[in-house]
């Protein structure tokens, strides 16, 4: 199971990296989102995907899955939400002010 997950995560990273290296701003943001999905899956996989009950004491299982990676992912997800929201608003604003979403054309000189 871990091997399969690793391949999937590798694909996520490859796609995300490809998108980040393109010119359009929106594709870059999609790339960062896909990379962070890969990151979150990676934490989950690194904690081990062995069978066990959900980490709730009411279930009275003998073994539970590791609760720490889940807490880490939850934290990382909300942080990533906030950053992505800011990034989207920022690129919207940049599109309105600069008038392009092509990163190649976002050079300009430094005195303006």
């Amino acid at each position: 199971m871990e091997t399969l997950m690793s391949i999937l995560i590798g694909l996520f990273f490859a796609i995300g990296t490809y998108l980040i290296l393109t010119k359009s701003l929106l594709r870059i943001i999609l790339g960062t989102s896909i990379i962070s999905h890969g990151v979150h899956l990676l934490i989950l996989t690194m904690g081990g995907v062995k069978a066990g009950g959900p980490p709730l004491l009411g279930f009275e299982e003998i073994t539970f899955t590791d609760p720490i990676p889940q807490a880490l992912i939850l934290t990382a997800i909300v942080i990533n939400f906030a950053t992505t929201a800011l990034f989207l608003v920022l690129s919207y604003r940049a599109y309105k002010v600069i008038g392009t979403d092509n990163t190649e054309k976002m050079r300009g000189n430094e005195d303006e």
Partner: protein
Amino acid sequence: MINFLLLPILIPLITGVLLMFINKHVMLQRWVASISAFVTVIIAAMLAHKVHTEGIQTLNLSNWDAPFGITLVSDMLSALLVLTTSIISFACIIFSFRGIGQEREKFNYYASMSFLIVGVNGAFTTGDIFNLFVFFEVMLMSSYVLIVLGGTKIQLRESIKYLLVNVISSALFVIAVGYLYSVTGTLNMAHLSERIASISADGQLGIITVIGVLFMIVFGLKGAVFPLFFWLPGSYYAPPAPVMAIFGALLTKVGVYSITRTYSLLFYHEGGTIQTLLGVMAVLSIILGVIGAIAYWDIKKIIIYNIITAVGVILAGVASMNEDALAGSVFYIIHDMIVKAALFLLVGIMIAITGTSNLKQISGLIKNYPGLAWTFFIASLALAGIPPLSGFVGKLLLIKGVFDAEHYWTGAIVLMSSLFVLFSVMKIFINGFWGKPLTYKGEEKAPVRQLMAAPVILVILAVVYGVGADFVFPYISQAANILVNPDLYIDAVLKE
């Protein structure tokens, strides 16, 4: 009081929340922000004294024992850095009163500043690797707001780059934490150190080295080490002077601190690969920094490239890993934070007067602004490390340590870099302050007298720090001692 080491994080946090409720009352905001920053300075000084007399302070949050809960650790290094951070934030807030403009102050400027301090102080104090990530994000999120606040074209453009680079480096940070967790099964730094030691004893060093290098890439991106510096010159160019000062003084230094902490506490078992890599990156950063500083005729760019040089110098000391070199690094990092903040603020005043940052359009400022000129002169000499001033002692110790570790080329390059750093700042002084006085558009309006307060405080501090090196040194050597003997840190946290 056991919660004492929490106060440098808690006070700015509460202030930041309060400031958001009063964001239309500019005067009230100024009072609240400056008083709280001043209180933080005093608290941080008391904390440093407490750590000096009573040893490492640790606090297990909510009373969970060490490896299971989040532990905050204040050893001498973090206490000193928290104190320096508080002083610099106080100076930058005072500078902002006249230096930032009301329209920015009305839109949560001081609140963002407070949250930035929360992030930086938290990153210096935490003893948990994932908590370090969270404090990094607190710091970065506020820095995104500060860099774009105002919304001019150049700010928008540069903050997109800055945000993208930091989103990627944060993703890499989480990956590195994930790998480390799967190998060791813990997140507490002291506990990690023990586990890594036992893994190394089993001879399975390969994976630890890989994770170590991954952390180097993450913190190198935050701290602008060669070849990961590329975002810095543009991003730090965009925001106004006080923001630039606080970025230049604090943000890269958090990356440098994290490198110092992780490589002295976690990845010290096999010196070879990682230390060599760190040394090479440090030397290349120094070379790149001086090339940039010499090449530009733009006063902001010159100081910005000097940040990269300083990061290289500090890491050259860390790469040598002996007590002298580390004491030198600690001394130098504090000196550099203070002097860089002062220089950025002074450059900000020059730009406020002249309305340009192009050195070729500035000359003869010393005639009308002698105070500014001489403050800048002293700050430049301190930056280059002229003996009675603060840059000297740190660099002396550092070079002694580097030579003791037999890294002769590194030592030689650090020495040579001082010359070029001096040349680059003297270029500003000679071309900008000497020569025929010109008339400038901002001359009437610029409130130079009020703006000078903050940089003068910082420069006096830099002079005192250099002259009173004997008084400061026990603190510095205590910090270096913990870096050399990580067992002290582990014992203090795990209480064994």
